């Protein structure tokens, strides 16, 4: 795209603000050529990553479907929000969004309340069974969810009759083990003197947790909340198994069902599919862009699914 122009700009700049170690040998022409290569690769990468999102938005606004190369550019005469009205009529977008919100909110609540308590106990308190619990947590992080998928379905949908309920949807994800792990790591890093002082002053453990530990781990709370949000919001497999009525399905599930059953009956089937995709993508992408610096790649490892 704009790689060549940016490149000229670079050539005249000093090397001093380079943030990283680089091989120093080449100068002049070779250096410039290498910078050109670097920026070219980075811009090509950005285009490959962003183009599908750009196309998602553009095609979701098309009045009549245009799959040709020209269709990748918005034309004023062919713009409409009809596809959003269409998908809303087919899926009831607000209900689906509400379902996604309740599912995600339930998981967040469970993780923040019980996950923090668990993480604090694992980090700070001596009690019988702590070692066993810690090993169990590590196992949860390693063993794929799919092994327990069939028995969980049998238990939750068949035995407990929780199919098509929010509780059944939330239950398997109610406490995010990655978040518990992050909480524990952060609590371990806090200076112990603070806690000794609190205990000498006679504060109870809950009081210590609430007034001393929690305010100090606020960044960790935010990171854990963000990655816990993205998991259930994007999750497809489990809510897909557990919900049969459309009125209870989160957006990821109802949109997937719409994709696999959509007929050519609507004026612009791709347009309405992509309109649904935009609505599903926007909350997670927006949160990511707003809180970008809180997304730490090492923490995200097993937290993000779907």
């Amino acid at each position, binding site marked *: 795209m704009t790689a060549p122009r940016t490149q000229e700009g670079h050539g005249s700049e000093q090397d001093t603000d380079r943030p*990283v170690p680089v091989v120093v040998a080449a100068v002049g022409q070779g250096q410039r050529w290498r910078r050109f290569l670097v920026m070219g690769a980075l811009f090509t990468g950005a285009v490959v990553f962003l183009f*599908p999102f750009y196309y998602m938005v553009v095609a979701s606004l098309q009045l009549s479907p245009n*799959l040709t190369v020209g269709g990748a550019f918005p034309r004023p005469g062919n713009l409409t929000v009809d596809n959003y009205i269409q998908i809303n009529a087919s899926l009831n977008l607000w209900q689906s969004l509400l379902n996604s919100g309740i599912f995600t909110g339930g998981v967040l609540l469970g993780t923040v309340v019980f996950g923090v308590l668990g993480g604090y106990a694992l980090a700070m308190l001596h009690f*019988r069974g702590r070692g066993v619990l*810690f090993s169990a947590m590590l196992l949860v992080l390693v063993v794929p969810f799919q092994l327990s998928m*069939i028995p969980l*379905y049998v238990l939750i949908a068949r035995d407990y009759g929780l199919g098509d309920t929010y509780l059944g949807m939330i239950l398997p994800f109610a406490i995010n083990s990655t978040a518990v792990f992050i909480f524990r790591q952060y609590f371990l890093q806090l200076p112990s003197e603070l806690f000794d002082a609190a205990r000498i002053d006679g504060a109870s453990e809950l009081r210590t947790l609430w007034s001393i530990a929690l305010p100090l781990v606020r960044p960790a709370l935010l990171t854990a909340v963000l990655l816990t949000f993205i998991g259930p919001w*994007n999750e497809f497999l489990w809510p897909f198994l557990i919900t049969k009525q459309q009125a209870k399905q989160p957006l990821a599930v109802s949109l997937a069902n719409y994709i696999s059953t959509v007929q050519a009956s609507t004026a612009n089937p791709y347009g309405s599919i992509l309109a649904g995709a935009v609505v599903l993508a926007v909350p997670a992408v927006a949160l990511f862009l707003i809180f970008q610096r809180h997304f730490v790649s090492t923490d995200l490892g097993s937290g*993000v699914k779907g």
Partner: protein
Amino acid sequence: MTTSATRSPVPRDHPASPAARGADGGRHRTSLFTRLFGRQPIGILLAAPYAVFIAVIFAFPIGFAVYMSFTDYYFTAPGVTVPHPFVGLDNYKTVLTDPAVLASFGHIGIFLILNVPLTVALSLGLAVALNRAVHFRTFFRAAYYVPYVTASVAVVAVWLVLFRSDGLVNQILGPLAPDPSWLVNSTWAMPMIALFVTWKQLGFFILLYLAALQNVPKELYESASVDGAGAWRSFRSVTVPGVRQATALVLLLAIVTGANLFTEPYLLTGGGGPDGASTTPVLLMYQQGIQQGKPSTASAIGVVLVILVLIVALVNRRLTERSER
């Protein structure tokens, strides 16, 4: 493993707490209560919800899965009790002689062959480039990461439109486009899934490599250049060995992702199609266990899958540990 796991969560000591002082005074003075429940028994209370959660949602279902895989289990109305006869290894025999199941494991093999080298090469390359860039670093990081935080269902929708037989990609390719088109072509279906997953997850691995690059000592690059190494040579001899840990993690996570593939074959290639060319074990577990009401064979597939994952992960860990010595 057990010992290291039980030893590692040692929290810091609280010498000021009365309970701790009691313990310091010698074991004979510790009360029975403390010995039974630990020095801070309130920890049991705080951790109880999480412990119950693990027991109910993780431990019990896994035991139940193993049990089901050894019995002839079928669905009944809630409350009706029917016998589930023990059938030994019959379900495993059924599963391991089913060509569809074997093919689905083969498809994971195709996935890994494409996904691992592509991920390592592209994410390391882009991480090195990003590490050198002066401008727009934040923009690039965000751009690369966006697919990773977006729901699979949403991006699958775009790929479906882009790779239709009359979609944008084929319009650009013209006569070069494969026939039948990408997602309904039995040769291309599984590679397309591998490509899709590589594309979606690349941002995560770019940031992983970017973090690993910060830990490669600068001095190594300096001495390499003093020794007359060019850019490519110092990349091969300094950068690549320096980020070996991250590369091992790529392999491990690729195996876990491959073992978990469901959304992509279900939606992108329309249920593992065409003609079963892109099935995965989890898709078969869904089809057999829930659609066809055979949870026993589905559980057997799950057990085989997890055992394979654990074996490959262990071998992977052995190999990377050995090469570090």
